[in-house]
């Protein structure tokens, strides 16, 4: 029966491929009236095939030759989106996933599941609503999905696997989080003073109850965004002020659970346009707010309560003729600031890896590296965490939890250059931050971070019709702390990315690139088991590591977002502190992705 359904759905998918492209998969745009009249049900989706072989080598295999050193796997899947507009004010969409693992036959390894389900519409031409799956983002301190570490300007060669991870984990553009619940929003326009006001509210269940000790967890909240009219037309003075609330809570009324949390984050964000003229723009931007964390037991007895504040305020200067934007901001995020919706990371460094999770004679858990971050979807999550997740200080020590990283004070700055001729585009961002409260000592850590990227479009320089682009990314990070010998910290890391995209023939590209990481020094990584409470410091984190991820391959683009790529990648991991466990990983894969 399953096979028949699979065949039926696949056939439907093929029929739809032949149909003209009508609709975005995420349902971001309502179909036009003409389209709605012509057709009320649309099909679109994504098809993907990946077959890959991964091989483990190096000293770790030389010392343990009996271990398995090669894994071949893959999958074939079709995400079929069925989109219906029963009337001009309502729309529903379901995405059915049909998946077959490489090597799966006659039911084994096959699955059919609902990947996405939502409905949306407009009530009385005023209030928009959406129920079911939805992507939400508010501000970097309330509800936000901060970018993962380990990349600055990811070379194109590694991007297909990254896109695959993003798709699987529902990482939508704009740092949105995938939630399941309901959302309403509306906008009001005014003729005097205020120009407009946008109001939004949402509620989502982020964890189900087990009816024993784990209660249902919800996140809800909303925002009011007020935009003023221009105060002074010659200067372009105007202001945008937002009031935001993200509230996470456990429902203790259902089941036997008797302990739960309340985490409220209230903020005000603003963007004041001081000057907006043809040659120059100057903005005062920022966000300020407070978090409250309350752990309750039965009868609302508070057993743990903590609150703290944050602020980020700065200015951005845009020099329009030079296509240059400069920004600087002062940051002060309290050590007890806790925001589940904003501090949950994408990468769970303690999650089991899909490939060679345990290696060596002692079956030790392999330390995740650039290779895993670039391709292993099982290391990623879209779930919200009620504790500060583990991080790798070699990849991100300054802001492991994004801009909402607690216990940071100092300056962030940025420079962005995007000339109109698009020959070169570049940006530099950085931070000079300190801890506000010490960890394990009253001495404070200092963090220095520089991130730079550049895209050099040679095809624009030599006026070649095919794409020829060099991409560069670089990150330098230093963490230091003075004090007694055991308190001292000095950790340096360098991340370098080089990528090449050369379109040899129309739509046929040669891709090559590499990512290199070096790290040396010492730091202490806190062990956090609940919320943001430092329980202990395991052994000092000592690093003298070198990682290199190299790749080369070919890609043929059938059209935008539909391509096939064949690649070879090689990764090496070397620790001077543990040379017997140095290893290499190499992989060959073919990936075919089709959006329709």
């Amino acid at each position: 029966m399953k096979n028949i359904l699979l065949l039926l759905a696949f056939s439907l998918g093929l029929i739809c491929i032949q149909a003209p492209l009508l609709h975005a998969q995420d349902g971001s745009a309502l179909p036009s009236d003409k389209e709605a009249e012509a057709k009320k049900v649309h099909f679109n989706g994504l098809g993907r095939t990946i077959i890959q072989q991964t091989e483990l080598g190096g000293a770790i295999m030389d010392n343990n030759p009996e271990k398995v050193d090669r894994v071949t796997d893959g999958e074939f899947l079709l995400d079929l989106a069925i989109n219906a507009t029963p009337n001009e004010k309502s729309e529903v969409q379901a995405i059915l996933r049909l998946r077959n693992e490489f090597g799966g036959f006659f039911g084994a390894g096959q699955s059919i599941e609902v990947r996405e389900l939502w409905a949306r519409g407009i009530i009385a031409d005023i209030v928009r609503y959406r129920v079911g799956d939805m992507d939400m983002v508010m501000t970097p301190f309330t509800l936000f999905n901060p970018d993962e570490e380990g990349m600055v300007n990811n070379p194109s060669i590694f991007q297909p696997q990254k896109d695959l991870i993003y798709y699987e984990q529902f990482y939508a553009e704009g740092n949105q989080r995938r939630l399941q619940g309901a959302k309403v929003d509306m906008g009001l326009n005014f003729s005097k003073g205020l120009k407009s006001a946008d109001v939004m509210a949402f509620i989502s269940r982020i964890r189900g109850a087990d009816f024993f000790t784990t209660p249902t967890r919800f996140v809800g909240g909303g925002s009011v965004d007020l935009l003023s009219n221009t105060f002074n037309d010659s200067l372009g003075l105007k202001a945008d002020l937002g009031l935001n609330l993200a509230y996470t809570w456990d429902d203790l009324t259902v089941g036997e659970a008797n302990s739960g949390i309340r985490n409220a984050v209230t903020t005000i964000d603003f963007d004041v346009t001081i000057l907006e003229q043809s040659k120059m723009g100057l903005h005062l931007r920022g966000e300020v707010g407070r978090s409250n964390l309350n752990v309750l037991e039965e009868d609302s007895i508070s057993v743990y309560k903590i609150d703290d504040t944050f602020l980020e305020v700065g200015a951005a200067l845009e020099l329009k003729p030079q296509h240059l934007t400069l920004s600087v901001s002062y940051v002060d995020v309290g050590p007890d600031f806790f925001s589940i919706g904003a501090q949950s990371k994408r990468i769970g460094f303690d999650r089991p890896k899909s490939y060679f999770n345990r290696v060596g004679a002692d079956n030790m858990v392999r330390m995740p590296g650039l290779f895993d971050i670039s391709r292993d979807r099982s290391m990623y999550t879209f779930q919200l965490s009620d504790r500060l997740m583990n991080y790798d200080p070699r990849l991100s020590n300054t802001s492991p939890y994004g801009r909402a990283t607690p216990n940071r004070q100092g300056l962030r700055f940025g420079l962005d250059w995007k000339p109109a001729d698009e020959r070169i585009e570049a940006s530099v961002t950085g931070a000079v931050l300190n801890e506000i409260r010490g960890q394990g000592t009253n001495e404070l850590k200092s963090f220095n971070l520089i991130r730079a990227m550049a895209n050099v479009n040679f095809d624009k320089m030599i006026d070649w019709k095919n794409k020829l682009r060099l991409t560069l990314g670089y990150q330098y990070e230093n963490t230091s702390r003075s004090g007694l010998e055991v308190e001292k910290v000095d950790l340096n890391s360098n991340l370098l990315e080089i990528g090449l995209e050369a379109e040899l023939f129309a739509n046929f590209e040669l891709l090559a690139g590499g990512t290199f990481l070096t790290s040396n020094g010492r730091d202490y990584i806190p062990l956090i088991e609940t919320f943001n409470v430092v329980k202990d410091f395991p052994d000092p984190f000592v690093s003298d590591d070198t990682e290199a991820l190299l790749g080369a391959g070919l890609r043929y683009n059938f059209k935008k977002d539909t391509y096939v790529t064949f690649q070879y990648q090689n990764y090496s991991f070397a620790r001077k502190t543990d040379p017997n466990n140095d290893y290499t990983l190499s992989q060959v894969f073919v990936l075919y992705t089709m959006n329709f």
Partner: protein
Amino acid sequence: MKYNNRFYLFPLLCLFLVLTACEHDTDQFDGPGLVDRFGEFQLLEGLTISRATVDFSAGETVIFGARFNKRLNFTLRITGMESGSVKTIQGFDNELNANNAVWSGGTTMLPLFKREMCQVELIIPDENNLTLTGMVEIVGTKSYEGSLFTDFETPLGANLFTGNFEFELTNRTGRQNDMPAAQGDWYFLFEGTDNVVPNFFVGLADISARVTGETYIPFPTTVPEDLYFNAFIYADGGPHGIAVIQFVYDLNNTGLFEDGQDQTFQLAGDYPLDFTGWRQISHPMSDLGITQAQLSKMVGIRLLLISNMNSQPSPPLKVDYGIDFITFTAGGPLEL
């Protein structure tokens, strides 16, 4: 211009927010002190033992003390000089005190302690296994909870019947004190070879409930889910022996164990004897499928020695096991 004046409210508002958002609690650093955690080790106060002699049967306890300059892993190991029993207490702290280093007479590794001298060792693994030692004498052993069925310390007389029907048991089968018992001095040893009638069965021993002085076994509770059977079993690691323990229900209401007329219950899977040394076995009586009414009329316990002929070589090897301190507890397994 009117709007311009209002506009300046925004920077003022921002300034207000900035001033109110920069106050944090910085009095105490996060987590344990790094000096305390990773600094050079110093012994501030050596091992202390709160008493030289202890009577656990009277409810006395021994409190160990020591102080270090930092928190670290420690192991307290108390070894009975006669029984060989070992009690281990592990912790992570900068001090041993009444909260983390108290001994109330229990054991971690069988056998149980006797009235004997004990050596106390405080070991710091992270400091090259630095070891501090002391002594304490037990003058009264711990009284364990639950109802004792038998500990074989006194002869069972007519309450014990040993069935050597196929003449496969050795002469050593019976009460023995030829090695340290799990508790006290005596235990019951089963030993034999299934080489006369190769049918898995080697021998049996029936112990009547009257060994407790009652007609039926006195249990602390008759709720099968709450009633736990406990015994210490000795095995020598030989892989061919199986211990079977049957609980006999007085089906015909005579108050006596009558083979073939009363009903027996036993644990599915029984007790494989593939380990070495004394080991505690415990399980709720509900695992046997026994009812509360049946538990109120348990007339005895039958011990059997089985030789797993499927795995035995030819000729078959000797199999054996020891058993000691058969007790019943309520609410959970016997806690050592």
